[in-house]
């Protein structure tokens, strides 16, 4: 029934039928919306788009992943702690679903680490220890599956640099690793189609910090 409806939907919306499936079309539209989302409002709308796709194409992990990514990013865009947690609750559910679909998904674990950092930020006073350990554990899992997942490597670096900055210890020891990540980003980042590919710009910023 679902395929039938998909075909009809496709037909009736007059979309090209030649190459891409309706799912891919919807994903592409949502991804381009994602690329231009600047505000929380934009991001909410983009998250909704991914959610609609996730609901219908429920065997796909990407829409759930991107929905979670949107909500994690949204949590970093606002100040209110309770609302941050509400966003992260949604993201957490989506990541759980991705891991149910694909228990060894390196990107899902990397995103999970990012989510835990979001949880930590809400109340570093009481959550600092618990979530820094959780974030660390998730990154370990991501890198066990794919030792060159650039997003996991990037998040690991930010966590470590953050701690070093806090303690005023030397951060120049990280420069080599940042450099390696930078140079190899494209070779590490062998992503298929619509798979997660974010992080290059952020890693660039990390390098800028290092040079200062």
């Amino acid at each position: 029934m679902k395929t039938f409806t998909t075909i009809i939907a496709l037909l009736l919306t007059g979309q090209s039928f030649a190459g891409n499936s309706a799912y891919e079309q919807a994903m592409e539209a949502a991804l381009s919306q994602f690329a231009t989302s600047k505000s929380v409002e934009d991001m909410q709308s983009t998250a909704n788009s991914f959610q609609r796709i996730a609901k219908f194409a429920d065997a796909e992990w990407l829409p759930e992943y991107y929905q979670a990514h949107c909500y994690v990013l949204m949590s970093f865009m606002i100040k209110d702690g309770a609302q941050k947690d509400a966003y992260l609750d949604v993201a957490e559910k989506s990541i759980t679903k991705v891991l149910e679909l694909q228990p060894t998904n390196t990107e899902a674990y990397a995103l999970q680490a990012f989510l835990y950092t979001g949880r930590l930020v809400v109340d570093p006073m009481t959550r600092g220890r618990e979530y820094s350990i959780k974030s660390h554990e998730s990154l370990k899992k991501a890198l066990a599956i794919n030792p060159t997942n650039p997003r996991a490597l990037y998040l690991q670096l930010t966590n470590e640099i953050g701690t070093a900055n806090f303690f005023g210890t030397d951060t120049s020891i990280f420069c080599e690793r940042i450099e390696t990540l930078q140079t190899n980003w494209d070779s590490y980042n062998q992503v298929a189609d619509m798979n997660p590919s974010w992080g290059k710009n952020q890693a660039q910023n990390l390098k800028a910090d290092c040079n200062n």
Partner: protein
Amino acid sequence: MKSTVLVLFILFSATLGAQTISGVVTDIDGNPLPGANVYIENTFTGTSTDANGKYAFSFTDTGVFVLITEFVGFDNHRQSLQLLGTNHQLAIKLKETFNELKAVTITAGSYGTGKAEKALVMSSLEMVTTAGSLGDINAAMRSLPGTSNNGESGKLFVHGGEGRETGTYIDGIYVHQPYTSSAPNMAVRGRFNPFMFQGTSFSTGGYSAEYGQALSSVLTLNTNDMPDEDALNISLMTVGGDLAGTKKWKNGALTVSGNYINLKPYMSLIPQNYEWNKEPQAYGGSMNFRQKTKGSGMFKVYASMDQSNLSQFQSTRDGTSATLQTDVQNNNQFVNVNWHGSPSKKWYITIGGSFTNNKDQFTRRDDILTQKMMGNHVKGTAKYHLSEKIRIRGGVENIHTDFGNQYKRLNQEGDSSVSFHENLTAGFLEAQVYTSAKLLFNIGVRGENSQYLNRSTVSPRLSMAYKTGENSSLSAAYGWFYQNPMNEHLLNRDYLANEMAQHYVISYNQTIKDRTFRTELYYKGYQNLVKYGNSITAPYTNSGDGYAYGIDVYLKDKKSIKNGSYWISYSYLKAERNFRHYPSTATPTFTVPHSLTVVYKHWIGDWRSYVGGSFRYGSSRVFNDKNSAEFNAGKLPDNLSLDLNWSFLYRQNIILYASATNVLGFEQVFGYNYDVVPNSEGVYGRTPTLPAAKSFFFVGCFITLTKKGETNQLDKINF
């Protein structure tokens, strides 16, 4: 395939004129909800609402479809639509999801700390960084309103009640001996390390029917669940040291610790108010075991053994300057075992028990008093979720206490002993009912039977809360509370009745972001208090009574000052009693009419330091001037103190900590001890009851070693 498509195309081409589905999404009160997701089930078609809650999208299909509306924090809305190619205009109202975390909570009488409690007032880790608390849970709690500072005791005095009227519970299990032992008129400390607990809540009245044997307050401590990782904690302090090792496995963990405290080196450096024969010394060990069980259950065992002793010279109170050596020796063994779990989604069960064996020996010249207490507690509770908004909770328990005093004279045959055995059986039942997210009722009843006193009591407990606004609530509590007379009074006097208090509490709470304001008004009536009579057959009666009323004000602000937080507690208290040796109704000596505490903490990033200060003020208390005809008419000076502390994060896993109490050196007097006989002019001489020293200075170094070497004790200083 192609032909099918073609057929379909032709079939549906008649309805190709797209229909628009539009409208507005609001909450129940009609406020627009921007960002809601509106879509047609089993399609990719849909949109998000705009800033005005409006949505519009076109859809070309016809037939019966379901329109779904979703928004974070609201229940999903489903609506069946018959689509015939004409435009649809739909106003959708979303109902806020019933979320207990957002629903109103009863704040009357309740102060919570730590993540286990919803009414966050003070994070449990914050206790140790509260200047002046010196790692003592009770001292940290005394910075909250409703409490008063009684420097000679160290216990928790709440809403006009004495320290003994506060009951301590660990994971719901009664603690027979929550305080350390000390010399007469020297402050005691809580036995437990604040780091053992993930949540600490403290009630100023009107508490749940679950708790008995407390006339004024309960301090409920919830122990930590699983530790994060294997670790070795080393504490080096000016007064001693502590070593704790934690080993973690998949579903369990074990922590073993040992400590040794000796105040001799410190006390020989800093001038003391009292002369010591042997400075306080203590050593002990503890074991903490945790194992996860099926269905998110957890089994915990805590066991400790402690020994302490001290020997002090105290006034003979015979009008001369002679002093008398007083020795105090304490041995304590404590075990607390409990399990909690959910056999099914709707049930939550707890089963637990505790065992205490405590021995205090006081030696004064040739007199030896040995006080032995053995107690145990067994308790089981069950909570049933009748529905989303109704919960029923019940439990049964048995508290057993063996208490005995033995008097003996040194170098003399024989002794005299008195003891009693109490077996208290109790049960409670309570219902928590949300009539909406705005209104909550908690109705409970508790029954107790005392075998020793041969009496039964029934206590109703009622509380309710109403959400008066987005961030504010009003709550009220009422209840009857019973407690056995103190152990010393119960010896050989099984005709006594349980002492009783009635609480009336109204509280208003407002929390906006990180600012909390709370005020509480209360009245407490005491009945059946033990009073000393003249009759030889009944030297003690239950004819005592009393009352207390007052108002508490609390303001906590973590927002206004960057990297800083502060709270201010003020309590007004008016109390009178006619009990024990009182000739008539009078203000008790432990009543502090005005109490003010201001606590400030500041994180200085550049110094990796967390610094804090507390200012405490307690207005003049009364004391009984033996040279005055009027009872309890003497006035002590006001009690003031400024305490400071500083935590420095030297390395990720090394913290240096320093604190000092009463840095301005205010004169503190907690009362007077009068001579037993008057001098030749008929005047009773007196000696003031003072703190052990004017100020207390503490320096410590806390080291955590882990395999990874990455963990730190950041949480321990709570920046």
